[in-house]
């Protein structure tokens, strides 16, 4: 099975990388960009249930205090 976990900062928590990317895009002339937010994706291959993947998030991949995570099952290409 292939799971996709996506982790992003909760709204209101500073996303410094998003801010510098915005800065970089502006410097290259893309000055109509209003905002950039970043997220990280882990694609996890393994025979696990959604609950178990959720546990991976809680125990290693994400911090529920500052981050939101979403889990999606993706079809194996």
């Amino acid at each position, binding site marked *: 099975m292939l799971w996709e976990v996506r982790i992003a900062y909760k709204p209101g*928590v*500073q996303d*410094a990388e998003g*801010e510098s990317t915005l800065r970089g895009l502006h410097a290259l002339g893309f000055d109509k960009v209003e905002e950039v937010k970043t997220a990280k994706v882990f694609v996890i291959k393994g025979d696990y249930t959604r609950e178990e993947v959720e546990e991976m998030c809680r125990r290693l991949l994400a*911090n*529920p*205090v*500052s981050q939101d995570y979403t889990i999606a099952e993706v079809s194996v290409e």
Partner: protein
Amino acid sequence: MKLLQAKDEDLIRLSRERMLSLSLEEMRRIKEHYTKLGREPTDLELETLAQTWSEHCVHKTFRGIIDYNGEVVDSLFASTVARVTRELNKAWCFSVFKDNAGIVDFDGDLGVAFKVETHNHPSALEPFGGAATGVGGVIRDILGVWGDPIANTDVLCFGPLDYPYEKLPRGTKHPRFIYSYVVAGIGSYGNNMGIPTVNGAILFDEGYVGNPVVYCGTVGLVRKSRYKTRALPGHVALLVGGRTGRDGIHGVTFASAELHEESEETSGSAVQIGDPIMEEKIKRGILKVRDEGLASAITDLGGGGLSSAIGETAEKSDCGCVVHLERVPLKHPRMEPWEIWTSESQERMLICVPQENLERVVDIFRDEEVEATPVGEFIPEKKLYVYYGEELVGELSLDFMFRVPRIRRKATWRDPNLREPRLKEPEDCTPILLSLLGMPNIASKESIIRTYDHEVKAITVLKPLQGAFCDGPGDAAVLKPLYDSWRGIVISNGINPEYGKIDPYHMAASAIDEAVRNNLAVGGRRIALLDNFVWGNPEKPDRLGGLVRAAKACYNVAKAYETPFISGKDSLYNESTLGQVTSTILISALGIIPDVRMSVSMDLKKPGNHVYILGRTYNELGGSHYYKLYGHLGRNVPRVRVSEAKNTFDALTRAIDKGLVKACHDLAEGGLGVAAAEMAFAGDVGLRISLDDAPKEEMRGDAALFSESNSRFLVEVEKGMAEDFEKVMEGCILARVGATTKEKKLVITEGSKVMVRAELSDLREAWQRTLR
């Protein structure tokens, strides 16, 4: 706010609901004040008072009145820590206790600033961000004395990494999670800002599962003639740095309360990630403003945000301030005025600037891509007028604000009535030594240390890892901050929470001894200290009793060692659903060395040299790692014998200055056995030691080998220099106990009995394996 009519229950409820962390007495005091004024307080005013009077900001406990076992302690701070400094009255103490960091003389107009902070609660919830902003915060303390931050230290305490998941209460993160993200957070901030992390320690104990401890320290260079700390009426309050957001609201009051199951949900606003690059830019701007002499005062925005920064600056400058909150650049639209006023968003500083320099200062920050916004103006009247647009949202008299009610607390101390265990005398101590080397508190921290940049700036001349393979555990870091001078700064620390479980007095005494001897071991002297208490809820008499004992030891030992405290911090209320934190005191030491080329590393240098032990070994295995290995605590905790120790210390410095010391390592966790092993494998030089001549109390060989008695060193002396060395050391307790050897083995004997015989490679492997 409806306060004037409020009954006691209402006051208590209000304090709790608004997360003010104010006691009933304090709420009453506020009510009384506003009754006199004949009006209700605004929410901004109430929040301001809560911040200003919080444990975090004013150290109520340390400055309060304590009934301790029948004795009345009138301000623990004044009667212990600060008293040492006052009585020693050292001319080289340039600024102590009163500012963001302590400052001592260094070289000519240059001073060194040093500050260590804790960031425990934020690190429990958001370990990466909590640790990172801990580093960011203490760096701002240095910027807040116009210092150029040049080095960081970090001391971290976690629960055991193998703690069973099932035992974790809801809302508590696993020690391993906390450990890896805290370490990453510390590294990321220091590395990104280009400040080397040169010294630290990592400890593990069950008592840190619910409440990890994260100490972050920063050393900076100050130009004394540019140390401006007084704003005048008419000067502009300039807010510099990142934007103000809803993050970090109530951080201070959060730090002044216990952690509980819901902390995860309720304190989300206290969580921040930090932006080291922003702080790097701010730093550049500040140093330029300093060097051009454009400002009159500076402070960081830490706990309490603008409210504390402006309030404290006005108070210190004997003036007041008119503030316009609508001018503050915001991250989130529609923030309430009180939120703007107390937000603890990271990477912000307050700079006070005379009108005529304002344009230049704003330009300097613009060049660094940093916003600098005039938000207020200082006035002669000692009051704060806080406006939002036309509306006066707060009017506070500084006299009331800073006349913090003194609390009175009860403290008790009872001897825990521990017993010495009876261990069977081992035939062979080799396996024990190998196990000790692998214990998490002793084991190599190399895998962590290397993720921290300790080279950046090219000033670290004695590094955390030393020896033939650059992997031995150094005692202290030596910095050479100036290109045109050999004068150096020596940074070390001392911490041993295990001893506190027996008696906090001896924990504190031993921590001072350890910090000092680590510093001396590399050649440091003229040592200044920082104290950092991490304790449980001081409203509980038993917690406070231990704290009082620890503080008393600070006075006794530091006074005798002539090492003044220059700054410090206490973090109380470290309790969680798992109970109180292991009471912990960290002592950080800042020494100088006149010529860094004299500094001594801990690795043995070559075969054929003499090895001496300095100091006497006592039968003091209480709290030792040897006992811990077998699950015991014991009772005979190491003492500090100040006059014996002082003798040894002074003589060691003389010997180092004469160039007689080839290698030196202090004896700490694991005692003589561990220190000998570390010196040998770090130098890749064999070592043979006989316990027979070592100065010691009557005791078994295994006890002598692993006792952790204070004030001891192992020293390597060049073959032909024994006589010179012994002459310099005259009057000290010492003995020649062994020699370095070609054969790459550690051999320790007592009489005809071989206690330890091990290959250096096996010792090294045992030490490195645990945390690799």
